């Protein structure tokens, strides 16, 4: 049994009579502990794919088995619980709460997990130290660099010990030095602690971190292998 199994996943957006198939019959399996990089041109359906895996979105049709459980029929509350317990999301825009400190941002998933304030602080501080931000715990996002903000976001994704880390263009807003630092963190987490990691990226040198690459085009998977050839058209 794979950790993630997608079967004939279709996502359609309708505009009156006109419809677009953002995901067109996607079938894919991802095993526990894999490090996957998702590539493809803009609009090819990468984010939609990630959102469905992350239970932020639901497919129009098809089955999604997470840990062997069919979550495509789950209610909003059940999906929220999965996002809280099994998924850690990292976004291109960091998506930190501007009026909360780094520590409070990291605590956020634990609040919704119903963990006590004392335990929350303990856990959050521990994770912050792992991403090298112990001394920035009481800083607000605006007082942090882009790379530091993204590290806070990674800490937030990790804090509730999820089984999957999903990062949608996590380096898209960072300079190349910070990008590599962030990728090193993902790599280390994957190698040392076995977090299943899926990262969307445009950049070939970032994609090179992946041990498996999946390339999307027009809602379809056009390549799924150890290394996908760089598409000349892009």
């Amino acid at each position, binding site marked *: 049994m794979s950790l993630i199994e997608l079967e004939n996943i279709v996502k359609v957006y309708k505009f009156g009579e006109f419809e677009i198939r953002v995901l067109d019959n996607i079938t894919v399996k991802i095993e526990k502990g894999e490090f996957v990089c998702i590539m493809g041109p803009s609009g090819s359906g990468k984010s939609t794919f990630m959102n469905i895996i992350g239970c932020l979105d639901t497919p129009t049709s098809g089955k999604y088995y997470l840990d062997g459980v069919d979550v495509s029929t789950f209610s909003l509350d059940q999906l929220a619980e999965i996002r809280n317990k099994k998924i850690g999301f990292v976004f291109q825009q960091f998506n930190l709460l501007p009026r909360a400190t780094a520590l409070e941002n990291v605590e956020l*998933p634990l609040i919704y997990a*119903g963990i006590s304030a004392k335990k929350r602080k303990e856990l959050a501080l521990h994770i912050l130290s792992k991403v090298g931000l112990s001394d920035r715990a009481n800083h607000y996002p605006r007082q942090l660099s882009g790379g530091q903000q993204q590290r806070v976001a990674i800490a937030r994704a990790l804090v509730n010990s999820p089984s999957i880390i999903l990062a949608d263009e996590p380096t898209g807003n960072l300079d190349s030095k910070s990008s590599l630092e962030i990728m090193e963190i993902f790599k280390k987490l994957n190698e040392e602690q076995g977090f299943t990691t899926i990262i969307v990226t445009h950049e070939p040198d970032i994609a090179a971190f992946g041990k498996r690459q999946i390339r999307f085009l027009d809602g379809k998977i056009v390549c799924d292998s150890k290394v996908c050839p760089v598409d000349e058209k892009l």
Partner: protein
Amino acid sequence: MISITSIINIALRALRANAMRSFLAILGIIIGVGAVVTMIAIGSGASEKISKQISSIGSNLILVLPGATTQGGIRMGHGTQQTLTMADAEAIGRECSAVMAVAPAITGTAQVVFGNQNWATAIIGTTPEMVTVREWELLWGRFINEQDVRSGTKVAVIGQTVAEKLFGEVDPLGKIIRIKKIPFEVIGVLDKKGQSLTGQDQDDIIYVPITTAQRTLFGQTLPGRVRLIYVKASSLESIPQATEQIRTLLRQRHRIGPNQEDDFTVMDLTQMLKAAEESTKTMSILLGAIASVSLLVGGIGIMNIMLVSVTERTREIGIRMAVGAKPKDIRMQFLIESVFLTTIGGVFGLLLGIGASLAVSSLMDWPVSISLFSAIIAFGFSAFVGVFFGFYPAYKASNLNPIEALRYE
């Protein structure tokens, strides 16, 4: 399950971040609750005043006055002003089963002197039953007794105002006062009753035996005639029966034919006051209802602020959902924010209401009464307004699609 303290913390933080806006939203509730509390205080103050008057005149009191009543009110009757007699009073006491006590009275005003102090006051000649009928308490000494009435002794029972004006700090008991230059011994001092319905000071009074009043003080009065008769019915329910019995009896005694008008008037004071009490109650409900409109407007203000807040914080909502907030967690967060706003408004509104009531009371000399009831109303109402007007914005927030919320700029 997310803990309630966490949700409250989140809500408080959000309110603090927008302090000015939160304050303005609260202001609407403060004014609304303040208005409701003030109006209830004014209204119930008025009805309490009337209730007090009811108990101060004596419960179940019926007045029998000489002269007929027409639809326009009381008109003095046929030639002679004084159609009621001592014998009428005795007959009412003897023959009307629904009557508990009867006290005839002769009234007048006179100058009263003690030492170098003098004071003009109401002098009432009456019988011992007056204490029962009017429910007077004696502070010191005793009231007029049967013996005083029989022998026409020159004794006086004085009200608080008279005691104050004539005696000041001196103990009035056993002292001799002069009413129309005739010496009277003070045998008792009445307890305070305060103002009557018409604003008269009920304590500015001296009671003397009715016989003494007839013979010595108001000599021109026809013998046996009385100015009015105070009657106490045996219960509130028996007032109509007592009234009817008195009318029938007096018509008989005065030999009034079937087509003739009464030459007396039976007034049911309790009933009149009850009616007045009812109408002030209605008025206070009406005032409260009008004031509630401002609370409603305040509630709409809260809803407006909450809707703005939800829109502004769309992205925050998306983030919270992405890390595992359930729709009900989001709904709770916004509901608590709005209830918090309105309850704060409720507390300060209550204070404002109390302040305004006291101001009205001292500036306009209007009795106000702030009760626990109105405090509870203020609280309950403001919390209710918070839930009611916070629900839609909170529902809207919880219904957001996480992906769209995250994409919101």
